[in-house]
């Protein structure tokens, strides 16, 4: 447990934590405020409706989570890779192992710390997203009557929990990649490449891509209208997605698999440099 607390103390002071969260929230602010400010200037009614969809509650709740999962997935990979990679780059894992710490235990508690930080980040980003959507609705003159929709509010804890699970999986991927790369820079770089590689894979592997980690993660939170974090193929046609329950299982498999690879690799590898 002391290892988890130590990890959390490290992470709350880490610039990467604030930069990642700040970037996500900043981009969300840019989009929501821009949409709010320009919704009434849309040339057609349908485009105005589409813009307002983002700002109209209760649907906005789900779209905020989808947005966070879409962009946050990339940030989750980068964050996981940055934290795991720096342990090798700075040699701090070496210091712990030389003190007799278990390699697996150290890695798993480190990831647990990352998971908690991602959860806090998700909640924080969601709260900021709701505030931004309200501000955007105010700018667009849209109603916020659905804000207190009890049915949607009742579903939010489950949605957020699913969203956290999805981001956890994405963070684990980054964590594993950086562990194998043994470097912060290489880990982040390869993590980003894998993220975009999967998006490109929609062109070549349209039937398989729904099982890949980022697509599965985005399907964990069901979005009925296919907006937000939904993916489309190269020609714009909607891709088949896993249903949320199946997606949850696939995401779980990726998460567990990533952590197994991480621990096995860390246990077996020779630490030098």
């Amino acid at each position, binding site marked *: 447990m002391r290892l988890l607390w130590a990890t959390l*103390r490290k992470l709350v002071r880490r610039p990467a934590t604030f930069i990642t969260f700040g970037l996500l929230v900043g981009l969300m602010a840019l989009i929501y405020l821009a949409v709010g400010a320009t919704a009434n200037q849309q040339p057609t009614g349908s485009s105005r409706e589409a813009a307002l969809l983002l700002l109209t509650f209760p649907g906005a709740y789900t779209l905020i989570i989808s947005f966070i999962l879409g962009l946050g997935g990339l940030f989750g990979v980068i964050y996981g890779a940055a934290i795991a990679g720096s342990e090798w780059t700075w040699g701090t894992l070496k*210091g712990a192992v030389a003190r007799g710490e278990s390699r697996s235990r150290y890695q798993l508690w480190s990831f647990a710390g990352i998971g908690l930080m991602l959860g806090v980040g998700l909640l924080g980003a969601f709260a900021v997203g709701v505030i931004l959507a309200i501000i955007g609705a105010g700018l667009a003159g849209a109603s916020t009557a659905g804000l207190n929709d009890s049915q949607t509010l009742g579903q939010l804890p489950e949605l957020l929990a699913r969203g956290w699970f999805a981001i956890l999986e994405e963070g684990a991927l980054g964590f594993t990649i950086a562990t194998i790369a043994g470097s912060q820079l290489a880990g982040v770089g390869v993590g980003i490449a894998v993220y975009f590689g999967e998006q490109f894979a929609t062109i070549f592997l349209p039937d398989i891509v729904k099982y890949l980690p980022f697509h599965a993660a985005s399907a964990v939170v069901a979005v009925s209208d296919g907006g937000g974090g939904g993916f489309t193929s190269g020609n714009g046609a909607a891709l088949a997605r896993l249903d949320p329950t199946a997606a949850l299982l696939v995401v779980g498999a990726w998460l567990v698999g990533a952590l197994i690879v991480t621990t096995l690799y860390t246990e077996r590898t020779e*630490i030098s440099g």
Partner: protein
Amino acid sequence: MTATDGLALATRGLHKRYGSRVALAGLDLSVPSGVVYGFLGPNGAGKTTTMRLLTGLIHPDSGSIELLGRPFGRRDRHRLFEVGSLIEAPSFYPYLSGRENLRALAATGAHTANGRVEELLELVGLRDRARDRVQGYSMGMKQRLGIAAALLSDPRLLLLDEPANGLDPAGIVAMRETLRHLASTGKTVFISSHVLGEVQQLADVVGIIAAGKLVREGQIDQLLEGEGVVRVRVTASEVESATRILSTVSGDGSVSPIAGDEGWLSVRIEPGRASDINRALAVAGIYASGLETGSDLESLFLALTAGSPSASHEGTFFGLAGSNEPPKGPAGWHDGGEAA
């Protein structure tokens, strides 16, 4: 009773290979308890590989390690709870302060007593800078923090890789006193270094490694007694013929040029026979312009490691002589000379 009883650290037939390169070729170390042991060798001789093996960072291809009288293998990480180490450069989170780094490290491995972090910050003279981020520390300050980290769990065996790196003279003196004090309390200090003057002042026992093998091990005094050296200076053009003549006096392989000092030859012979050397050269028409007698670790080291494959692979060893001698100064880690 076994051959490794009473030893704080022992290795037997330790082999390690990186691809086709042999790093260790059957290393047998015997480090008695309660001493400062100097582990010497040219660059690439296998010192750091040995340190990594002793701390479980890498694993041997064959051979065995005993730490504090018990076998140390892949599954014996708990043995390291009684071992403190500083391997290569000190490793810290640059965005955390010195104090926070020690606390983070204290959460790993063996239990660390309450107040130990503050005690060590005081010991290494970093109390005033404990709240500053490590990224602003000088190399010497990081080194001190690394030594504090090695002492966190009050280890019985301390493994230090080049502990004097980056320390200023006063810091070196203070470190030496600290390590001597630790040895006097029964702890064993194992120092890997190529700063021979420092090791000669600090160590009770030395082991010299070359090309992955131990070439000499023993108490410094005893080693130096049996390894007298006479140094002779001739003109550069006479080095070759002088080497040949002196080899007939002292035996084949006992004469070697001193790297970096043109015209100086090191002859392994009892110092009392310096006159024989002078006479042999004079008879051959070579007049020495300098003649020094004495036994020092540097000469012994050079004689034992000269021509080792690792030395030739990574270049000649130049960590020489009196320049390594720290100036006299006030003991204490509080030298204040480090720039952030």
